[in-house]
């Protein structure tokens, strides 16, 4: 079977230090893949390589059967890869929740074009799914860490991509919220038939949701489940 995401022998160095030393991972269509590892093992780096925002110095990154590294229009391919970062850099920027979620549509809307009613409806639907519709008019900077994480997830869902990358999506959540958000992610993963790749530093926590778990250690990924 063809894979939605395939990283083969990926090497990445950051400021001269090797972070990934030949990582190979595969995710089939509709598969939920978890990548576990301690802090500082390169989990976030791995996700950045997967969505093409960081180029490896060697190795292959195949997404939806296309070579992401040598792609003539990586932005077009990136529109099919939704990314939920661990945290965003919006310290003081005035942006309403509804605008932040709508941002997920920006790539697909096209440059110099305005969002349509359909784009807004998709953003509203994503806010409803993640339970942040009541905060739609609030500023993102006024929300708690957990609520901001839900905004990031809603933006990724609004993007309507076929691949979902999640960078420790439960980091800022309390125990009940963590279960709630993971159940939401799991449900959406199945409903939308997404290929999901999630990184976490808690392997025991992600095992129950994942079809496949890789352990990232010493710059390589080992398949454990």
């Amino acid at each position, binding site marked *: 079977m063809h894979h939605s995401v395939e990283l083969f022998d990926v090497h990445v160095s950051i400021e001269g230090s090797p972070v990934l030393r030949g990582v190979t991972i595969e995710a089939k269509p509709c598969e939920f893949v978890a990548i576990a590892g301690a802090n500082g093992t390169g989990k976030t780096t791995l996700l950045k390589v997967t969505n093409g925002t960081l180029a490896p110095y060697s190795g292959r990154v195949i997404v939806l059967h296309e070579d992401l590294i040598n792609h003539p229009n990586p932005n077009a391919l990136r529109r099919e890869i939704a990314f939920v970062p661990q945290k965003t850099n919006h310290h003081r920027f005035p942006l309403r929740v509804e605008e932040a979620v709508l*941002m997920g549509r920006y*790539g697909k809307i096209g440059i110099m074009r305005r969002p349509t009613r359909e784009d807004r409806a998709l953003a509203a639907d994503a806010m409803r799914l993640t339970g942040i519709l009541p905060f739609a008019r609030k500023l993102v900077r006024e929300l708690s860490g957990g609520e901001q994480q839900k905004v990031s997830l809603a*933006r990724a869902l609004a993007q309507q991509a076929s691949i979902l990358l999640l960078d420790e999506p439960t980091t800022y959540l309390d125990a009940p919220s963590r279960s709630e958000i993971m159940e939401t992610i799991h449900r959406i993963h199945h409903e939308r038939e997404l290929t999901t790749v999630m990184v976490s530093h808690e392997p025991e926590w992600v095992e129950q949701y994942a079809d496949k778990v890789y352990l990232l250690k010493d710059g390589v990924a080992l398949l454990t489940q």
Partner: protein
Amino acid sequence: MSLPAALHLPFFQHAFVAILFAGVAFPLIGVFIVSLSLVPLRFAMMHIALLGGAVGLFLGLDPTLFALVFCAAASTALGPLSEKTKMGLGTLSGFFMTLTLALAFILFSRGKINVMEAFGILWGNILSLGVWDLVLAIGTSIFIIVVVFLLFKEIQAILYDREIALSVGLPERRIYYLIVFVLGITVAVSMRLIGALLVDALVLLPAIAAQMITRSLKQMFFLSSLFGLVSGLGGLFASLAVDIPASSAIILFASAIIAVCILSRRRFTSHANNP
């Protein structure tokens, strides 16, 4: 001089029209500077303009034109250079700030240039604008407004978080370079209009004031323009009324607007804390 009499003088008419356009458009660039922390770039442009002026004088050509060309070239190159060298734009600006100053002083020394004449590029005067200065101010203003209007959503994403802008599939790098280019050009033209040391009055201060009290980027752009226009025209007319330099009067107006914004924000915050 009375206001009706001044309105008939060409130099005042030029200043009025320049402020009308630049007062609305240039603070939009201030929003970029504030949101992306690009203040060092504004200082680098000042020094690059000085080097351009020194080259112009060294070659016996128009120093202002050379200053503008150097700023345009630098603002085109700095964005990509920052990515290639993996140096932040702030660090790179610091590097160019000192390098260009050193080169300018070599030219002063070798070309036996009157240093005050070269530094004259940095002291603009809103009341001494020629027709070409006016064309430059209006053209730059229209360009800025068109860029902000057409690329609003792309700019919004980049000012919010460049990584997110890239991950949703926007051509983040090209738009960021465009932002840096427009910023460089604006700073260069502002220097010609009101002087390098007073650029902040027209570009930065209105955006700083707007940032304090806005709840969306659209509001921030709108209020920055409004504050820029009010401080620009207010300063211009006040300079006539009380006979003080126009650039200083514009700064005083812009500073007063910031003070009002600080006070209104404090009041709002204390009301919110003690309902």
